Every structure is written in structure tokens, then in C-alpha cells.
């Protein structure tokens, strides 16, 4: 047997020191290194690929260290839960409904920065607490090998028709684009009709995915003829090296129809933000021309600031019939919309 050695007091001291340092580092949230200008905590519900380059650039230009927490719409609830324990400074969202909901819950702080005036009043909160940057319309992406534009349904109502059973894809009910879309439909159709439409949609959908990327890829690959997505997913799929024979139908465009629903992506200033000054700096910075262009260019959304050119191939905001509804009106209906979705049998989760 090996002769038992001695654990020297030195070892013990070192071990205790390591423990103490680790504990300290962990409590302080893992050593905020670099950046003498403080930090900025961004909760990001948008695809990270579109946001990260901008945040990196901001970090570089200002020396403010950006800490990002990427997720999906659950971040809305997280902000709500952390009401008495605020961690986030800025919330980047794909959904005006979610931001307006937060504002009405008194979770956002007003912002009077003149930079906000670049954006049309329709696309920002009355108190400036959130501001839209890019528009996103709800469209049907389809695979041209499987179905022609003429065969495609022209209205969303038609998706409830059994003839489309198993032919299309939707996202899970909790996807924030979906929730706000449903909130808008409720305004137009009323509860009953929306609920039965959702049930039929749930019945008919061939696949229910977590997000829209799955849908554009699957439709592009010919797994399903078409799917309900935001317009820019169509443009993203066009850019793919393969599986790119896709088209997009803006629904409900005929005379007398309601038009396609348009949502906006943007950013919101959190009430009680620990780094409020940095949050304001960030929002002003994002509203500069270059950043506005960047924000919508990579995701192929339509910029809301008229000076900025839309990406090639993307429809300008006035080129199609949009559902005439004020986005700020949707906030209060947001939780009801979720409830309605759950009642219809469509899961919020995957």
C-alpha cells in the first residue's frame, strides 16, 4: 500500500483561497472584464445572428460591455417576474404586442430622446418607451415545385378548410409572432371565430414547429407545400444555396379583404434598468442610420425609417394591403390571445 502522505496546511490554505475567489467571481456575475464604461444587459428575443454583430459593434465603439441573454418570448415573462429585481436594461423584441404589453404592465420607462422622431408615430409607444425598427408581415411561404401561386389559398380563413389538411406548417402557439397575429385577428374576427379558426388550424397543420426557421427550411426542402411565416423568412430562404425555389403570398389582398398583418421588431427601455444611461445611449445609437440599415438588412425586414432603403426584393411597406390596426391597441389583448390559443388546443410550448 502507498504510504499515506501529509496534506500540508499549505494545500488547505490554497484550496480555501481558490474557493473564496471562485465564490467572489461567481457572485459578481463572473468578472465583468474590460470596458470601463460600465455594462449593458440586453434581453434579446430576436434571432441572435441578426443582433450579435450590432451589439459587438456597440461594445467596440462605446467601450460599454454588453451582456446578452438570448431567448424567445419567455423573456417577456421573465421581465415581468423580475419586476422587483430588475436585471435587464433593454429588451429587443420581434413583437410590438409584447413590448406594448410590458408597457401597460408599467415595466417600461418613458424615453423622450429626440432620436425617436425618425420613426413614424404608428410604430412607437406614445411615451417613447419602445420603438419599432423594422416591419414584418405575416405571409405564406410556398414551395414552387409542389404548388403554384394560383393554387395557393388567398386568405387565411381558407386554411381552416379540410382540403389543406397536412399541407402546411405553423409555429407553436406561444411563438410571439403567432400570439400577436392572433391578438390582431381577434380584433377583426372576434373571439368565437378566432377560436374555431385556431382549432381548425391546429387540426390541419401538417407540422407545428418551435420557430419560423424550421418552416422556411422545411418548405424549401419540400417537406410541406407551404407555411405561415413572417415575410423576411421568404427572403432568407431565397438566399440559401439550395432549396430556394420558394415564393410568398401576402394573404387577404383582394378588394374588401382585411389585408396582411404587419408587426414590427424593435427595442424597449426597461423600467428601473440598472444601467439606464447606457440603455439610452444604446437606443439612440441604434436609431442612427447605419444601425437601422444593419438591423433590417441581414434579416431582410423592411426598415421603418423611410430614409433607409429596403433590402432588394423586400416589399416596401406601402406595396401591399396591410391590416388596418393600431399596434399599440394589441398590448392589452396579448394575454387573452394566449389564453384563446390554449383553449383552441394549440400548445403554447412545442
Amino acid at each position, binding site marked *: 500500500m502507498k504510504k*499515506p*502522505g*501529509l*496534506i500540508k496546511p499549505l494545500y*488547505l490554505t490554497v*484550496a480555501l483561497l*481558490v*474557493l473564496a475567489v*471562485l*465564490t467572489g*467571481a*461567481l*457572485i*459578481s*456575475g*463572473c468578472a465583468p472584464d474590460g470596458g470601463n464604461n460600465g455594462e449593458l*444587459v*440586453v*434581453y434579446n428575443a430576436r*434571432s*441572435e*445572428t441578426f443582433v450579435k454583430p450590432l451589439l459587438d459593434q456597440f461594445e467596440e465603439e462605446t467601450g460599454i*460591455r*454588453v*451582456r*446578452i*441573454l*438570448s*431567448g*424567445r*418570448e*419567455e423573456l417577456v*415573462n*421573465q421581465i*415581468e*417576474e*423580475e419586476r*422587483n*429585481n430588475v*436585471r*435587464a436594461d433593454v429588451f429587443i423584441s420581434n413583437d410590438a404586442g409584447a413590448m406594448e404589453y410590458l408597457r401597460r404592465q408599467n415595466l417600461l420607462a418613458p424615453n423622450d430622446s429626440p432620436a425617436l422622431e425618425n420613426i413614424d408615430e404608428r410604430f412607437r409607444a406614445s411615451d417613447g418607451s419602445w420603438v419599432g425598427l423594422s416591419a414584418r408581415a405575416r405571409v405564406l411561404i410556398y414551395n414552387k415545385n409542389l404548388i403554384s401561386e394560383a393554387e395557393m389559398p388567398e386568405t387565411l380563413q381558407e386554411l381552416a378548410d379540410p382540403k389543406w389538411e397536412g399541407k402546411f406548417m405553423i409555429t407553436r402557439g*406561444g411563438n410571439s409572432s403567432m400570439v400577436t397575429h392572433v391578438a390582431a385577428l381577434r380584433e377583426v374576427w372576434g373571439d368565437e371565430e378566432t377560436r374555431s379558426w385556431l382549432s381548425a388550424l391546429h387540426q390541419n397543420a401538417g407540422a407545428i*414547429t*418551435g*420557430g419560423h*426557421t*424550421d418552416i422556411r*427550411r*422545411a418548405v*424549401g*426542402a419540400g*417537406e410541406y407545400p407551404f407555411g405561415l411565416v413572417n415575410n423576411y423568412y421568404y427572403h432568407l430562404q431565397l438566399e440559401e444555396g*439550395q*432549396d430556394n425555389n420558394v415564393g410568398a403570398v401576402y394573404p387577404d389582398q383582394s378588394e374588401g379583404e382585411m389585408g396582411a398583418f404587419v408587426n414590427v421588431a424593435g427595442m424597449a427601455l426597461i423600467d428601473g434598468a440598472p444601467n439606464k444611461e447606457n440603455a439610452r445611449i444604446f437606443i439612440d445609437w441604434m436609431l442612427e442610420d447605419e444601425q437601422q440599415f444593419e438591423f433590417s438588412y441581414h434579416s431582410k425586414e423592411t426598415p421603418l425609417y423611410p430614409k433607409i432603403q429596403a433590402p432588394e426584393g423586400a416589399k416596401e411597406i406601402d406595396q401591399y394591403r396591410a391590416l388596418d390596426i393600431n399596434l399599440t391597441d394589441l398590448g392589452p389583448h396579448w394575454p387573452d390571445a*394566449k389564453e384563446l390559443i390554449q383553449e383552441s388546443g394549440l*400548445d*403554447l*410550448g*412545442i
Partner: protein
Amino acid sequence: MPEKETACAENRIAYYRQAALENPSRFRLYIWRGNPPGFIPEALALVTALVMFIPILYVLVRGIQGGWERWLTLLDTRIPHLLWNTLSLTVVVSLAALLIGVAAAWLVTRTDLPGRKIWAWLLALPLVVPPYVGAISYIIVFGPQGLVRNLVGEAPFDIYSFGGVAAVLTMFTYPYVFLITSAALKRFNLNYEEAGRMAGLNHLQVFRKITLPLLRPAMGAGVLLVSLYALSDFGLVSMLRYTTFTTAIYFQMGSFDRLSAAVLSVVLILITLVILWLEYRTRSRQRFVQDAGTFRKPLPFSLGRWRLAGLLGLGAVVASALVLPLSVLVYWSYYGIARGALDGRFLEYTSHSLLTAGAAAIFCAVLALPLVYLKSRHPSPVSSFYEKLALAGYALPGVIIALGMVFIFNSYIPALYGTAVVLVLAYIIRFLPQAMQAESASLNQVSPRLDEAGRSLGYPPWQVISRIILPLIRPGILAGMALVFVSAVKELPATLLLRPPGMDTLAVRIWIEASEGFYDMAAPASLLIIIVSAVPLKWLINRF
């Protein structure tokens, strides 16, 4: 002799009970069976055990308090569907893993298959591939937009189906059965089978009536691990778009409907308990003792013309559970690295993984010591009770532990909520039992006589611990740390739910990249996790 000892112990217990009845101050002596530990080790063990158990208790309480209304709605809508999804997957994967594991174990231990030593290693290796990483490689190859489809025009089968999920999950869990069953087969005594042969049974009957029953305990232990894994897996099932209790709890928490998440957790905890109880029942009803005195190693079974079939079978398993994932990940890492996956951020994610997992490993090694020490040196109902409390987190899925942490920290300890402390504590709760197992295996080999020698030479108890016990069980401590470290690096659901902003780890990055479909960007991190996991493989395999 054993009867005498038991009788002695019973007398002693009766004596202490009597003493405690007569004088309440003797109560402590009674519950510790006359051998109470010092105050400091007991306080440490007690606090650790409580901290390990409170979050789970809290989830249970909140779930039960969830309200009839919520229970009824959930029982009506979600639970039946989830029960069916979860149980069918658990049963199918357990059976498939049992079949593959036992067949492979028999082939490499009992037959004349060529290269059995190498096969044994290759078949155990998939243990280092985290199942969600394995799932990514299967999506890359067989997914609807995968490699196969690009080559032949359409995907050969639907990977996002029950069959797909079950097959992939089986591929990365069968090694549990394989390792435990091979270990049992290696200790197998030829005498029993020979007796059967002499009694006139043919090969098949011997296998059915003698070999199989003798293997039952090992198979049961393997299936237990597989089914507990299937119940708790989050990454693989969610990547393959399958809904079980864990994913439902995760998404319910995501929408911060914590009470519903707690209700679902209660059901999942019940299922886990039922499985543990079933295994305990089947195990305790059957007892086999193999007489070591007359041990004779069985002769290898000659496969004859079945040799090729055996080789092909094992080859297929190794190809799908090891070669395919590794080669796909290496190939894809190449693309990912060319696209700049290995930037400064990657280093940052790696350091976050190392820091959190390292902290968890160190804390686990330290915190396990008092518990293990009490259990080994002061055996009594009290020390077993502390141990059981501390083990509670072991069988339970990470989502439930994360749920408990969020409940407690957001409501009562807001200052720490949202820091890495919560994350590390979750790791400790989940993985402390691994450190305890490794350390107690080592400590049990150190005879208490050595402690006594130390004491009689004048060392106080703490010096006995630091000068005799700690140096002797160092290998166990290190092994425990390695196991905890690797488990924490791989951990996904609790990390996703508890990570502070800006502290993404490698596992989190894999999940984010994969959920956006950027598998090439997820590949380098996946490969790194596999390499890290391979480090304590020696200890991992020796555990069985």
C-alpha cells in the same frame, strides 16, 4: 458469526433506547447508535443535505398547492398525452437498450469473437457523447434537409418521429446496460451452467433458465439507469421535436407559468419514484449469491458461422453510436471553424463552462466529504437519512431542480438571483451524489483501524481526517471531481434556465445554434464537450 453480530447490535440498540428513555439527554447517543460524530462534521453534513433537498421539496409543495382547478385542467388536457409520450418512450428505449446492451455484452465477454477487447472499448465509448450532441449529428445526416437527402433526393425516414427519437436515444444510452452486464458476465461462474447442461438442458434452455436469471440484477440496474435517463432527458427530445414531461415543464417555465410547471413536476417525480420502487421490488425479491470459492472462468462460446453476423451487428452499433456522430461532428467542425466559429466568443463560452463546472466540482468534492465521512465512520439511521436527503437530486431531471432554484431565489434571495451562484448550486444539487459515490467507494476501502491508530497516537479527530483519511482517499476525491465536472459541462436544461445574461456556456451555445439550424456553428463546441467528457472515462467505466 453474522447472527451473533446482529444480535450484539440489537442488544446495543436496545440498551441505548432504554438509556434515552430514562434520560432524554441520551437521545443523541441513541439515534447515533452510541457513536455520535463531532459537531462540525455533523453540522456541515446536515446543512448540505438540507440545501440539496429544499429546492425539490419546494417544487413538490408548490405543485401540490397548485390548486384543484389547475390540477384538473392539466389532468384533463396535458397530462394524459404527456404520460403516454413519456412512458412509451421510456419503455421502448429501455427495452431496446436492454436488448442491444445484453447482446453486445454477451458477444464480447462469452464468445470467441475476434478483437473482443477492442470491441469492449468501442461499445462503451458512446457514453461520452451527450445525447443532444448525438441528436445533432443524426439531424445533420438523416434530417429532412440532411446529408442523405442531399445525396439521394429524400430523407430515408422521418427523424422527427417517435421511432427516430427512440432509436437515437437508445444509441446513446445502451452503454449503461452494456457496461453493467459485461461486468456481471465477467464474474460469471461456469459451474451453474455446467450443472444445467448435465441436467439435460440444451444451450437455449441453459441461457433462459440459468444465465438470464443470474443476470437479472445487472440488467435491472442497467435498465434503471436508462429509464431514469429517458425520463430526464431534455436536449435530445426537444431537438428532435418530441414532447415529454421535461420539455413540457421547460416550456411551461419558459412562459413562466411556474405553478403548472410545478404540477407537471410532481407527476414526473411520482413516475421516477415508481420506477425506483419497481426496481427495488424486483431486486429484493430475488437474491443470488455466486460462490467465489469455486470460481471457474467459462470457456468462450464458439460462434462458428454466426461469427460474421456477430461482427456485423457490433459493427452496426459502433458505427451508428460512435463513428457516425464523431465523423459528422469533425466534418462539420471544419466548416464551422472556416466560418469563424472559433472566435474570441468561443473562448469566452469555454471559460464560462470551465469556471462554472470547475466551481461545481470543487464544491461537490468538499461538500460530499462530511456526508460520506458520517455514513462510513458513524453509521446510523441519522447518517443514512442525511445521505438520502442529499441523493434526492440525483434521479430527478434538471428542469425540476432549476424550477426549485427559481422559486426560492427569486422570492427569498433576490440578491443572488440571476448570478452564476444559482447555476453552480443547481449543478451541485444534481451532481453531488456522483462525488459522494466516488468518495465513499474510496473511504470504504480505508479501514477504520487506521483512524483508531491515529487517535491512539494522539491525533485529534480533525487531524486524523486531514493527515490520514484525506491523503488516502485522494483518488476517490479526484474521480468524483472529474465526474461532476464532466456532468456539469454537459448539463443543458438547468443551464438554459439559470444562466445569467452574458454567461452562455458551450452547452447553451450548442442549443442556441442548433435551434436556429446552424449546425456547423454548433459542431466545434460539441466536439470539445465530447473530448472533455472522455477525460474521466476510466473512472466512468470502472464505476460499473
